[in-house]
C-alpha cells in the first residue's frame, strides 16, 4: 500500500510518530550521557518479553535480561570506577557515582525513519559519531575516546507512548581524540605482532541469549558488514521487518 492510500489521519499520526521516535532515541543519548541507565530503561523502554538489546558481544532478550545487562551490570561498573576515583579525588565524595563514570555521548545523525502503515511501530537506522569522555579517573588521566557506530532501532506504541523495543548497536571506529590513526594503527597491529590486540569495543560483556560476535569493529581485513540495514516502508512489525527476529509467534 502506498502512503497515499492510508487515511490522512493515519499519515498525520505517522508523521508525528516519526518525530516522537527521534525524541525517544535522543533521550537515550542524553540519559546515557549521564550513565543514567535507570531512567533510560524505566522511562523509554517497553517491558515486553520481546524487547532486546544487542552489541558486538551478543543480544540480550526479554526485559529482565536487558535490565540486568544494561542497568544492574552497568551500575556495578560505575560503582567500581567510583571506588578507584574517590581514592584519588576526594571531591567526588557525596556525588552520584554513575555520571562520574563517564559521559558516553552517542550523537545521532543520518537517520532513516519509517513508521509502519498500521501506526503501531517504527523502525530507524542511524550513524552515531560519538565520544566518550571523563575527567576524574582512577588512572589520574582524563580521556576522550571516539566511538563511531551504527544503530538499528525498533519502537512500539504502548498506551499512547512510543517505547524502544529493539536496539542493535554496531561499533565501527574506536579511537582516541586526537592522537591516533584508527586505520594505520590497525594495519600496524596486523603487520607487527608486538603491537598487541585492539581494545575491546565495550567495557563488559553481560549475559546474553544470542551469543556474539554480532558485529565487529572496523579492521583492515574485516569483510563488509550490513548488520543493521536501513528500514524500508512496511506494514507491520514482523520477522520481515525487525532488528531482532521474534523467537515465537507475535500475538
Amino acid at each position: 500500500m502506498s502512503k497515499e492510500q492510508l487515511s490522512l489521519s493515519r499519515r498525520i499520526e505517522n508523521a508525528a510518530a516519526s518525530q516522537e521516535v527521534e525524541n525517544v532515541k535522543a533521550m537515550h543519548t542524553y540519559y546515557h550521557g549521564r550513565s543514567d541507565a535507570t531512567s533510560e530503561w524505566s522511562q523509554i523502554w517497553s517491558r515486553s518479553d520481546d524487547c532486546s538489546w544487542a552489541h558486538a558481544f551478543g543480544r540480550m532478550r526479554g526485559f529482565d535480561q536487558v535490565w540486568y545487562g544494561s542497568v544492574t551490570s552497568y551500575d556495578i561498573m560505575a560503582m567500581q570506577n567510583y571506588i578507584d576515583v574517590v581514592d584519588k579525588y576526594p571531591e567526588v565524595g557525596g556525588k552520584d557515582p554513575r555520571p562520574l563514570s563517564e559521559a558516553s555521548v552517542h550523537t545521532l545523525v543520518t537517520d532513516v525513519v519509517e513508521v509502519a502503515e498500521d501506526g503501531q511501530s517504527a523502525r530507524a537506522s542511524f550513524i552515531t559519531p560519538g565520544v566518550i569522555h571523563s575527567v576524574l579517573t582512577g588512572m589520574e588521566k582524563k580521556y576522550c575516546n571516539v566511538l563511531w557506530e551504527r544503530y538499528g532501532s525498533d519502537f512500539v506504541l504502548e498506551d499512547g507512548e512510543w517505547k524502544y523495543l529493539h536496539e542493535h548497536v554496531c561499533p565501527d571506529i574506536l579511537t582516541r581524540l586526537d592522537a591516533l590513526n584508527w586505520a594505520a594503527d590497525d594495519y600496524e597491529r596486523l603487520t607487527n605482532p608486538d603491537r598487541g590486540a585492539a581494545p575491546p569495543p565495550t567495557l563488559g560483556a553481560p549475559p546474553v541469549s544470542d551469543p556474539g560476535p554480532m558485529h565487529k569493529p572496523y579492521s583492515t581485513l574485516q569483510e563488509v558488514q550490513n548488520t543493521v540495514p536501513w528500514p524500508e516502508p512496511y506494514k507491520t512489525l514482523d520477522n520481515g521487518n525487525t532488528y531482532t527476529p521474534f523467537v515465537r509467534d507475535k500475538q
Partner: protein
Amino acid sequence: MTSYTHPTYSTEQLVERWESQREIKNLMGKYANCVILNREDELFDAFWAGGENDVCLVFNDGYYKGAEAVRSYYMAERERNALVSKLLRDRFPEQLGGKNDDEIYGIGPFKVNPMACPVIEIAGDNASAKGLWYCQGAYNKVEECGPLAHWTWGFFAVDFINKDGAWRILHLQQVNDVDSICGMSWGRPQKIPSPLPEFMALADFRYPAYTESVTIREQYNPRRPFTGAPRIPEPYETFSETFSYGIEEV
C-alpha cells in the same frame, strides 16, 4: 497560539510536503549507508534522477556532468575498492588467500559520511527540492602508504527532483573544507607516510577525468581566504526561480 490554518497549503499538502522532506532525509541516509558498504556502483541507479536529466556530481576540484560521467565515477570507485581488496589478499594470503574476488570485495576501505543539520526546501510546485547537510566524516580508502584514516569537515549540497512520485538526486555537491590525516592537525603541515610496496599498484589507479577540472572549493589551509558554507536553500516556487547546486559548463 498556533494558527492551524496554513496560509498557502491545505492540510493534505502539508502532510505530503512533510513526507517529502522525510523521504529526502531517508534518501541521503541510504546514500551514506551505501558508501559505508562500498556499494558505490549502486548509487546512480538507486538514488539519481537518471540519464534524461541534467545530472551533476561535484567535488572540490572538479565535476562530472551527465549520466555517463557520473556513473563512470561510481564504477571507478567500485574498481578501486576491488583493487584494494585484491592487494590485501596478496599481502595476507593466510587470512584471505582462499577467497575469490566476490568474497573479498569491500575488504579494506571504510568511508563514513554522517549526514547532519539538514535544511530542506521543497518547491511550492512539489516538483523539486533542495537540501544542505553538514558532514563531519571519516574515511580510510587505503592509499599507497597503506590504510590511513582521515577526518573530513564539509558539506553535501543537493538538488532533487520528484520523478514519478519518488525523490531523486539531480545535482550533488560533496565538498570538504578539511580532509586531514587522523592524529594530525589540519592547521599545520601534514606528513604523509611513505609508500609501501604492497600497495604501489594504487599509484597507477586513475579516476575518470572530470567533465571539467576546476576549483569549486579550495581545501582549508591557513592562507585560505575565509570561505563560508554553500548557499543555504531558500523557499521557492519552482526550480527555475532558484539557484542550482549543479555546475553550468563554460
